[in-house]
């Protein structure tokens, strides 16, 4: 029975990891930058959902959709104000771009954390559950109904994003820019708009995971540290920029962490993720589904 619970709770957690990491992998896959403010989009979603319900009295579903919209808007603003100089020639070519991206996203992360401290205060606020009851019994196991429902929504969102990227015209444009920004531009694809779309999508997805997890992990200024670290592990594990990789990596990490924590030591739970990360980097640097080289 314990094994079943370990796998079950691991998969639930893994679905959240996959959703958090999807936003990061999209940005990396298309823009080739690492977004260090990724966790703060999670924080924006967690706060937006929680405060819209608790303070503004909005029902849960519209509040969650508003949180997603706010995350997407934050993504667009980030693209317009901070990321566009990367590919419009304001920032010099070559290696400098990477440094610029690191510094600017890291700075944005610190700014958002401290801003929320000043505006919203230091106290954590528990997000409202999607289901009124705090726990229920399922096949002899106690589970949080919210956790169950949130995980289902996370899986649905993952499926929707994969479908969007694989089948729609906009998805194909995204794929084209991911493969070769210059080539896509020659083919008439506006890569700036595609980049804005990707950052909006990424912001919206991460904000959704923040909203879904706010009843479990609460909303507070530095709540983004946890999803950021997990997302980086998942993205490297699955392969930088690979969508199926980040989904599988998330689920795998959730289950492996659970097994390691219970059968080896809970104290080293986060270490398991990093051990997996190091092994992947040593044995298969491109990750489970990653591309072999960063640039063509």
């Amino acid at each position: 029975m314990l094994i079943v619970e370990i796998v079950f709770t691991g998969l639930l957690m893994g679905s959240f990891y996959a959703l958090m990491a999807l936003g990061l992998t999209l940005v990396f896959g298309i823009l080739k930058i690492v977004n260090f403010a990724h966790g703060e989009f999670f924080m924006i979603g967690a706060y937006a959902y929680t405060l819209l319900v608790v303070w503004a009295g909005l029902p849960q579903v519209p509040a969650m959709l508003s949180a997603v919209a706010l995350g997407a808007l934050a993504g667009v603003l980030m693209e317009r104000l901070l990321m566009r100089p990367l590919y419009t020639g304001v920032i010099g070519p070559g290696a400098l771009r990477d440094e610029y991206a690191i510094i600017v996203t890291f700075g944005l992360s610190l700014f958002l954390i401290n801003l929320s401290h000043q505006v919203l205060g230091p106290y954590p606020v528990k997000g409202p559950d999607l289901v009124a009851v705090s726990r229920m019994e399922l096949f002899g196991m106690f589970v949080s109904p919210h956790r169950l429902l949130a995980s289902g929504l996370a899986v649905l969102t993952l499926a929707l994003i994969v479908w969007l990227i694989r089948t729609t015209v906009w998805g194909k444009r995204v794929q084209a820019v991911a493969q070769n920004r210059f080539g896509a531009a020659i083919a008439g694809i506006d890569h700036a708009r595609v980049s804005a779309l990707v950052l909006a999508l990424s912001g919206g997805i991460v904000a959704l995971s923040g909203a879904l997890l706010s009843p479990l992990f609460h909303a507070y200024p530095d709540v983004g540290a946890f999803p950021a670290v997990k997302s980086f592990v998942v993205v490297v594990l699955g392969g930088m920029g690979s969508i199926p990789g980040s989904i599988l990596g998330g689920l795998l990490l959730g289950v492996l962490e659970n097994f390691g924590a219970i059968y080896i030591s809970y104290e080293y739970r986060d270490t398991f993720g990093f051990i997996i990360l190091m092994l992947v980097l040593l044995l298969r640097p491109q990750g489970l589904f990653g591309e072999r080289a960063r640039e063509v």
Partner: protein
Amino acid sequence: MTRRLLLTLIALALGWPPAAGAQEPIKIGAPISMSPPGSVAQGKEVRDGLTLAQEILHKRGGVLGRKIEILYEDTQGIPEKGRAAVEKLITRDKVVAITGEHASSVTLADIEVAHRYNIPLVNTNAWSDAVRLKGYPQVFNRSNYNSRVAEAMGEVIAKMKVKHVVAFAENTDYGTGQAEAMKKVLARVAPDVKFTARVLDRAARDFTPAVLPLKAERPDMIVTIMIPPASYLLMNQLYENGIAPSKDTWLYDGAGVADYPDFWDNVKDAGVGLLSFGLYHPKMNLTPLGKEVRNLYIDQHKREPNRLIFQAADSLFLLADAITRAKSTEADAVIKALRETRFEGTQGLITFEKEKGLYFQQWKDIPYITYQLTARGQQLPETLLIQGPGVELSVDKLMRPAR
């Protein structure tokens, strides 16, 4: 002549030369957490308490006729930052004393600097026994201490006749120190109790893997030695998994988080049935000074203060009292005066032990209480008092959850 007179008048009008520094404020340094990863919530409570005490002192004409200026430095709950903050406060800002620190790990770093520069430091809320065991003559402890909590909880656990206790302690000097102290106390007062302590990362968010094995173990009691937000998350996850509080397993909080202003916003159903150690309850006796602090706090914040407000206010009052008796801000004189303290603080008469060891320069008889939360959203005045000043320990009153 007229010109010289004019210059003199202008100089006097501009306040020069200063009147022998009589109006210069007395500078007190306060290293606290104002940003993560430290507990910003605790930092805010400490700051509120210090500000209240400062207001009260100013209303009474200040200290030695001078105002108190509190210089805050953000330690982020990181020992290295705490050390740098105290170094800066002492060497650059020329503070005459340090107080306000609320994290054990940071206090252990702070006291090294205060000791090196021979500057008095009043510990506001560092519970780790190690702070006292250092034996530094500059350090005085208004704060509660781990051994005190362990003794109080040990007494309750022994009386409840539970057999198997699992403690979850955060990975800090405070957390591991309290777990260790509890192990020693239980070995003495309840040797039949099987006690195991598990260390959790205070930055973690999902404690499910730590909680799941308890379904098989089914301990009689789970003790939490963690501060928010980690403690809130752990409590929720214990409840969601049907482990505690439950008809089989008690949940006992050793960090006193149930009186935090945001407790019920974050814990909800998981808090019902929680047994808690506490350092303040409205049914406890307060001194006239304590009542003044409480009333002023309620006026300003529209809610009951928690224990950190009293601890922080007392910390500043103790320094003000020592400076007044020493008639000086000179370090040796203030330290000597602190050593001889007999000050009626907010919660009772404060004196400091002189014998080296666990209680060195500690206010030993800090009043405490044990209570149980019996309904969701219950505020401190309505909680079930199990033990406290004037209330004999009675575990028969405890209410066990139905499921």
